[in-house]
């Protein structure tokens, strides 16, 4: 159920690693470009996750939500 969240956390961790590697320096042009592209992809993914968390605000009484759920299950 938390697959997406794990992805966000993992993405952040991977981003940290990529930035640290690039900042340490010493790799070739090819590897630099590869890491940069991976980092940029991860950034896009994280931003998408942030917008995905916004949505509807439901405020219901217990009876109302139960009735809704029951109606949906039929």
């Amino acid at each position, binding site marked *: *159920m938390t697959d997406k969240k794990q992805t966000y956390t993992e993405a952040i961790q991977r981003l940290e690693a990529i930035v640290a590697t690039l900042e340490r320096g010493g*790799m070739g042009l090819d590897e630099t470009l590869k890491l940069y592209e991976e980092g940029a992809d991860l950034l896009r993914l994280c931003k998408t996750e942030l917008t995905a*968390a916004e949505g509807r605000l439901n405020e219901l*009484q*217990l009876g109302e939500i139960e009735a809704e759920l029951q109606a949906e299950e039929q």
Partner: protein
Amino acid sequence: MTGRGEVTTGPLPIGQFVQLVKQTVVRDPLFKNQALRGEVTQWKQYASGHTYFSLRDKDGQMRAIIWKGRCAIDPSIKEGSEVIVLASLDLYIQRGEIQLNVERIEPVSVLGELEKKKRLLVEQLRKEGELDRPRHMIPTLPQHIAIITGAGSAALSDMQRLIENRWPGLRRTVIGVLVQGPRATEEIVRGLAAARRLSNPSVAKKRGEPPVDLVIVGRGGGSPEDLWAFNLEPVVRAIIASPVPVVSAVGHESDILVSDLVADLRASTPSDAIERVVPVLPELYYLLDEFEERLSVASRRQIHDSKQLLSILHARLRVAPMAGLNRAKAKVLALSSRIQISTNQSLGLQATRLAHFEASLSAIHPQRVLERGYSMTQNADGDVLSSSKGLQVGQKIILNFADGSADAEIKKTHTDEGEK
């Protein structure tokens, strides 16, 4: 007549009668040091230090007094408290009223019994391993939070306000339930069941929203009795059974409930729950922006470094032939100096050789031969004559001795074979 006799035979003065009753009442062991239970009413503590009240239940009541300093009085005792007293019956003569002289008084808490049940439940959960079972991880970015709490409560509006401050528009479903009173337990359990259904992906899909991935269950502060539903087994079991992480957010900082012990996260208050599970959106964006900046700066520098390395290599390539020449020059120099040295050495050697040669030459110098008594003959041209052949009579010759020479003329020649 003194009247005394008459008194004993006539109607009894009321005072004497009351005293009689008192003696009887006080003497009866049944009315001494009796433990009694009831509710406190008309509780009054006077400045004199005495405390007056009535002890009652639905079937009856009696006045009671705690004389100053007689016993310690629990400060929680108040109007309506359920207490147990240790008291003896007494009679207040001036009023002819029966009252209880209280020797000890203790509040009977409903809580006492509840506490006992709570401890038993905790013990049971510990035995079952529920207290140290592995917990669900709280999602970094909750996609859909279910909040189970009192509808319209202060706790709910605090939580809503905090969420809006931290992550405006974060998706959430509030399930309003009764959080105190006799129906609270049942409603909280049903609220948890509804949240569980909302966490089911297929139900969520039908509703057109992501499944609930985090549940907050709680309420604001109140008396221990008000919070008690969160200490009861049905609520506790429903929290344990939740397939998604549950945050227990009940009461104040100091209230520890069984729900806190089994939840995936214990928040000290409802507001604390929000602060611990709802990230601050601008901070998240800031973090991402920072990563973006660092990523691009580091990449650019890395590319720049690579370019610089290339240009250094290029420059080195360009000067490489010159370097070869210089090397050759240096080599030639080194070689020539070595040649010089070896030439000098060989010259020295030859000089020595020459000296030796000179020495050996001087050993065979004609002068030395002459000194030994030989003489050397030369013709007029200076040629050394070593044979008599070719000599002409009358030819002028020079005879060389060690210390001089003499001119001579050939008179006659001889060979070893005979005269010519």
